[in-house]
């Protein structure tokens, strides 16, 4: 069913008319041209498509676009502000927490929501919070380290 859907995307309001059952992932990637959100499995199993909706983590590959009407969506493209990387992004660069980089946007946004809920996570809590995001290249150790660093940084800043 075609419907007009309005929501806030990375701080700007957008409105588009499309089949409201389509998933947010493909609307972002095609209609809206934001390709930083990745397709990895299409079944909410890998986390490559992770975005933030109203401050909560969401897997956009299984999220119908109609369910985000009026909501606030943050994608990887919206995380850096005026060319300045977010501390989590900084920490990923600093710790080489990526190889091929395909899982990276999803990892960063998942970490973002993790730190939102729990600004001072223990290592175990980080592992638990990241458990369902997959990385085939095996960057896990560095990702954990990056999140630890980011948490420190953000605490300092906050």
């Amino acid at each position, binding site marked *: 069913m075609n419907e007009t859907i309005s929501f806030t995307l990375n701080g700007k309001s957008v409105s588009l008319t499309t*089949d409201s059952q*389509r*998933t947010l*992932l*493909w609307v972002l*990637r*095609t*209609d809206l*041209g*934001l*390709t*930083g*959100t*990745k*397709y*990895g*499995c*299409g*079944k909410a*199993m*890998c986390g*490559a498509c992770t975005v933030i909706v109203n401050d909560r983590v969401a897997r956009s590959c299984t999220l119908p676009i109609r369910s985000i009407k009026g909501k606030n969506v943050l*994608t*990887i*493209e919206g*995380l*850096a502000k005026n060319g300045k*990387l977010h501390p989590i*992004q900084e920490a*990923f*660069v*600093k710790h*080489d927490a*990526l*190889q*091929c*980089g*395909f*899982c*990276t*946007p999803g990892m*960063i946004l998942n970490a973002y929501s993790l730190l939102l809920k729990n600004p001072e996570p223990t290592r175990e809590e*980080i*592992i*638990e919070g*990241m*458990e*369902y*995001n*997959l*990385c*085939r*290249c*095996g*960057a*896990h*150790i*560095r*990702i*954990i380290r990056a999140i630890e660093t980011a948490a420190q940084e953000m605490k300092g800043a906050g």
Partner: protein
Amino acid sequence: MNEDKLQVAEHGHDEDIYPLSRREFLQSLGSGIVIFFAVGQVPTARGQSRGKKERPDFNAYLRIGEDGRVTCFTGKVELGQGPITSLAQTLADELDVPLESVDMVMGDTDLCPFDAGTWGSMTTPYFGPVLRAAGAEARAILIGLAAVRLKVPKDRLAVKDGVVFDKTNKSQKVTYAQLTEGKKIQKRLEQEPQIKTVGQYNLIGKPVNRLDARKKVTGEAKYTGDIRIAGMVCAKILRPPYHGAKVKSLDTSIVDKIEGAQVVRDGELIAVLHKYPDIAEKALGSLQVEYDIPKARFDDKTVFDYFVDNAGNSKVTAQGGNIESGQKLAKYMVEETYLNGYVSHAPMEPHAALAHFEDNKLTVWASTQTPFGLRRDLTRELGMSEENVRVITPFVGGGFGGKISNGQAMQAVKLAKIAKKPVQLVWTREDEFFYDTFRPAAVVKIKSGIADSGKIVSWNYDIYGMGSRGSQLFYDVPNHRTTVCRELKNGENMHTVATGPWRAPDNNTNSFARESHIDVMAARAKIDPLEFRLKNITDERFRRVLKAGADKFGWTPANKTPSGRGYGMACGFDVNVPVVLFAEVKVDERTGSIEVKRVVCAQDLGLVINPEGATIQVEGCITMGLGYALTEEVHFQGGDVIDMNFDSYELPRFSWVPKIETVLIEADESPSRGGGEPAIICMGGVLTNAVYDATGARLFQIPMTPERVRKAIASRA
């Protein structure tokens, strides 16, 4: 800024998507210094001529522009292992420029020199030296120019950060940018230039952060599926239910009514095209299709017996001495069979391609490890000339050997040709599991003899279903023979699904079998596994690695075997790299689950360009290796692949990752070797050995699923 050009070449941005052909490109470069190479005739750093002789064409390897930026053109691609950084680092060091001033243009067949492909840890050892020579040559030319300009003899000049200065009077200086201004120097490298030696390096051997990190953390990095060009449509292909299935009938009437959808068929290839990939995918479900399905010969459980029972001709790949006389010297004979199933590459980025015909030129963006191989296949398939086919490789989201075969690109090209518009095809995860070229399932049978002295005196090693890489003995065994059998009695290939190289092909299975067997023998002879290996390895390089790893791990002989400590070790050898892994595991005997607590890896990579990068590679290998050792195995019934997504095909997760420690043996004077693979090959062996040490249960088949572990525990002696 050259950055723009890099963007275009790498990623094909909408505005200027078709830069010039290489010839035009070189003409258009304007001022600057370009060093050409004829690949295959290149004097490399060590005097040997390496590389492919296939195309003795001239190629621009690097260019120093008027803006002082250095552009490096390479047929290598960035799959995640970091050549974008290590190659830039190498070049920047030889040229004495800041790392940030190097731009990499990778995997574009129009702009970059021929390259056989990015795999097997070959980038560093084979391409690195060539690049260093080119960098050194360019530097020599620039110093020559500076000598004239500053009126100072060459030997009084030095370079730092792209500035040439008089060593005796530092205010006398000129930048590379100034030197190249208005000049158009094109030089073919003819003899081996003077490259730097240890001690002269500024960047080589230093940890640096990845050059592509910023793009990758902001979502800016473009992968093939992210590229958009005018008029393109997205394709989703109808995946047959079974390998070898043939379409009997197809009814497209429902899909024909979907606005904007188009069904395209080329023989067995059936696809729906639509502006939106999700709508194309949904439409596939409305195609009415019937198939003829071939009969299953085996499944994931019966495959091993099937191979052995139906084995056809075998080939001897290595032999020495005489097996029979060796056996006579033996005090103990040990005979075992080792099994390893199919595994999938499962890169996080599924295969993707975008194909565009324009006039008589074809451009293909592809997630591939072999842009030039793809171009060759396309020219053959389409009867087009090489000048008219261009393959561009954006960032690739992991390959591991799976992106050497380019099925998706061929499919996209066929569809684009029929549809007469640009077609982008991204495999779904299910397509990815179905069409993947799996690491082949294989059986290894080993019969070996140990003399009273603890020396291995005979070694008979038979492989079924895969090749011999990694089976070469680094143990000193006087009497040995290795055979490989890959075909059935009727001459057919053993496998019914597609198979191909998987990170260090064959070596994972061969190392698992050999290293398990070494431990079985050590236990039989009642010798500590480390001591047993040292008794049987004389190669000094290898012994150094073994000892360094054992030191780091804190290996001590146990007073009984199995010791209950859960310690294991395994050695391996891949692309000239000796590697050893030590591990500690904890096994829950009730559930059969294995916790890997700690892994130590020692390897000798020769001169390490980027130690941080090498360490990351080791971590990546060990983490990925947990998968094939513990869970990863493709289930199937004949041509029906059962695992289709990550619910049943389990990749390693955060909570599985052990403490990982890496020892890189210092060997700066020996040539660089690739670190992208060696560490992974020992994971099967080291963990089965550790599980044995923990429980006394020996697993002869990997992955060590909880079920298999429980079974082995139940039947332990």
